């Protein structure tokens, strides 16, 4: 059985290391915060200008002046720091954020990513996505393996306008975990109940199933 969104987030949470500063995008990436492993301390960065993002506020305690990059009301944790948007993207560009997790419409087998614009549809804008993908040392994409039409989102070349080039290091989908390296999509884990053949059938880009591919522990 393919993974659901929560399971994708849970799998990505295993990539967190003690002491990491992490930026989580909107959607599945946001869920990662709920599954930080026991014994691991991480700090969440919100690119509108906050390190040390805490959980959503209790009802009645929302503060209009305290939101995350998704414009949701949030809280701060002890040790948090507030800064302006230039410093926020400054620390991102300088590689101080260890890990960025974000969603995508398409990923290419060379690490290109497209997640901001669909031609002929309304463009809302790239927000901070182009800065994040161009700068982060380590980028994991969380997404469904195929689009609603059943077409692969793991491609040889992105068909949509790019957000960044050659930047994605790892993709976690409902079907498996894929490093992006000289092999293209290098499958290192397969979701429970999913077969290598299914992954092959649903992956349009270059794909190699690792010899020592593991069944994902959920």
């Amino acid at each position, binding site marked *: 059985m393919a993974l659901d969104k929560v399971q994708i987030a849970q799998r990505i949470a295993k990539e967190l290391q003690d002491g990491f500063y992490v930026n989580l995008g909107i959607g599945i990436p946001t869920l990662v915060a709920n599954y930080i492993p026991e014994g691991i301390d991480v700090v969440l960065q919100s690119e509108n200008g906050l390190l040390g993002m805490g959980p959503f506020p209790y009802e009645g305690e929302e503060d209009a*002046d305290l939101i995350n990059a998704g414009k949701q009301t949030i809280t701060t944790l002890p040790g948090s720091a*507030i800064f*302006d*948007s230039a410093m926020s993207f400054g620390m991102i560009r300088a590689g101080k954020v260890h890990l960025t997790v974000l969603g995508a419409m398409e990923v290419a087998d060379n690490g290109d990513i497209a997640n901001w614009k669909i031609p002929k549809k309304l463009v*809302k804008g790239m927000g901070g996505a182009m800065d994040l993908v161009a700068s982060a040392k380590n980028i994991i994409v969380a997404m469904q393996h195929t689009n609603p039409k059943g077409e692969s989102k793991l491609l040889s070349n992105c068909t949509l306008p790019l957000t960044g080039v050659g930047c994605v290091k790892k993709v976690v989908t409902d079907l498996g975990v894929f490093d992006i390296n000289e092999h293209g999509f290098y499958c290192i884990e397969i979701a429970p109940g999913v077969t290598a053949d299914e992954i092959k059938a649903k992956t349009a880009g270059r794909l190699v199933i690792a010899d020592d591919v593991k069944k994902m522990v959920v």
Partner: protein
Amino acid sequence: MGLNKVVKNAEEAIHDIKSGVTIMLGGFGLCGIPENCINALAATDLNGLTCISNNAGVDNFGLGLLLKKHQIKKMIASYVGENAEFERQLLSGEMEVELIPQGTLATRCLAAGYGMPAIFTPAGYGTECAEGKEVREFNGKQYLMEYAFDADYAIVKAWKGDTQGNLIFKDTARNFNPLMAMAGKITIAEVEELVPVGELDPNFIHTPGIYVHRIFQGTNYEKRIEQRTVRKRN
């Protein structure tokens, strides 16, 4: 005297703004936007404005109010969802929009405030955002050269400010506000609380008054929340 930057209200603060000028406006979404000045601008007949702001408000609040009255000729922003009228004007060609990465937007403000004519950022390299831009390699990585903004006015919202224009911001309502405060030829600050000089600790000023030309205490802040998200108490 010369260092007293206090004006009476938003109307006085924006009195000399002319149609066709470029205005930066602080805020991220609806968080930390200069509500009083936006309302005052919406009450004028100004038009042909170029607005630089991370977002474009919502249909009936924030910059959405200027959009509705067709006061904005061009919008420079990083994300402009949440606004049906914006969409309509964009598709109909009534308004021009230039979308740029959020970090580029922030850093082009910083560059203006710090007298740096251009900066380099990797954001947008290899994408359609790079079209027409100079690309330069440093240490094996590709960067775009982006120019400092050149805005006639910057309008920002602060938490507290003193009569000499020193400003402090609260929580993530800081966002672009201190950057734009530095970047305007004329900078207008509206504050929730205007205090006498000497009341703010010099060690914790976010925007030194040298960057601020006019300041007033705003009224009736609505502080609308775009995405109210809460958890239940156990």
